[in-house]
């Protein structure tokens, strides 16, 4: 198990290999479908983005509202592929890390390689478990979007697995593919 501090550094990213289990500590941003759409619209117009992207990590999540006295509600990852359309412009602007669940497009994998980025996966559906790893949550942009707003999260020992590393190696390549289990199933 590796321990990594956020924001990520270029050298820390280079050391991460596909399949590595990592505990994250530090600050990251949340964003899902609606926030991605808005960020990319703002970027296309050449305007200033409401959050810095350089070396930052975005977690694809729409949490449940927090109970009184807690920082956040349940907060497991959402499907990353829905963000694929918007990911490359964000990587172009310095984004380094992403956390979600599931596969990414070929284009996103190439862009991760090109920009020395990393894509982590968190355990889909382990939302109450992951809530315990978040120490603080502050809405920083698009707050009117509710669960789809951008929050700055402080996390501690947040468990993730490297799914695509900076060399473009992809954890899903060999899992459950037609080359693998499918033929046996027939």
């Amino acid at each position: 198990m590796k321990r990594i501090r956020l924001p990520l550094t270029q050298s820390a990213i280079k050391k991460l290999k596909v399949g590595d289990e990592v505990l994250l500590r530090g600050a990251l941003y949340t964003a899902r479908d609606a926030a991605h759409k808005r960020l990319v619209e703002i970027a296309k117009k050449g305007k200033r983005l409401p959050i810095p992207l350089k070396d930052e990590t975005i977690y694809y999540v729409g949490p449940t509202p927090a109970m009184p006295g807690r920082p956040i509600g349940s907060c497991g990852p959402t499907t990353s592929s829905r963000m694929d359309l918007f990911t490359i412009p964000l990587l172009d602007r310095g984004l380094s890390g992403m956390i979600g669940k599931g596969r990414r497009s070929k284009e996103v994998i190439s862009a991760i390689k090109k920009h020395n980025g990393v894509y982590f996966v968190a355990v889909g559906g382990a939302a109450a478990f992951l809530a315990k790893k978040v120490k603080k949550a502050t809405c920083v942009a698009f707050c009117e979007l509710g669960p789809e707003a951008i929050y700055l999260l402080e996390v501690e020992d947040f468990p993730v697995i490297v799914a695509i590393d900076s060399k473009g190696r992809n954890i899903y390549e060999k899992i459950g593919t037609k080359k693998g289990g499918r033929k046996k199933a027939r």
Partner: protein
Amino acid sequence: MRRIDTKRVRAEISRLCTTANLKLRPDILSAIKNAYRLEKGRAKNLLGVLIENSRIAAKERLAICQDTGMVEIFLEVGQEVNFVGVGLKESITAGVRDAYAKGRFRKSIVSDPIIRKNTGTNTPPIIYTEIVPRDKVKVSTFIKGFGSENKSQLKMFRPTATIDEIREFILKVAEEAGPEACPPLVLGVGMGGTFAKAALLAKKALLRPIDKRNKSSHIARLEKRLLKDINKLGIGPAGLGGKTTALGVNIETFPTHIAGLPVAVNISCHATRSAASIL
């Protein structure tokens, strides 16, 4: 006639929505625990996280999953029941609204598929009503997340399609669902009827405990065979490899037309959430 005040319906819907969001179904939890005993390495650890997740959810009243879903309500209304008070639909909607406000569950419903403005209450729910004999009302709430819902598929087969072709299709749907649908999956399959009926049967199939097989022996055999085949895909917990790609396959059937054979597959995740009671 037996009179039931819709206030009772409202309270019961709220209670069931809350239970389903916080407590994993016993059949699902026990299937995850069985899989935990079977797996090794990373797959075992990931299933351990899911078991721990369900424990935290129930103990701390945190939703099992942040996607607290679109609510689907199945009502089996005895024909001798007379609902009194506020309208039934309004009462059910109010029950959902109560549960999501009080439980601080995520509001995930938008009022229009194109304009996409959040209704802020997680309503409306989708209500299916069936009239049955006698004077009881069975209320089932189904909380459906969209990570898995998005992976569901329907195919209109030729009436002469072989059972192998149908198995191959269902297997393909499970394979395409992959890591995004939060495996280990539960598959609800509907066969027969029409386009809409097959989809509804697939959904209803997910309400049946996964340790109960279909009453028809040929369908029960198909359920068992499919579960075995899906678990050979190697997708595994969280889609990161392993023997447990699905926890259960439930199939429901209905008579159909001489010219067709609709097959619908409703994909559900390891947090297949439903709760039911009788009024």
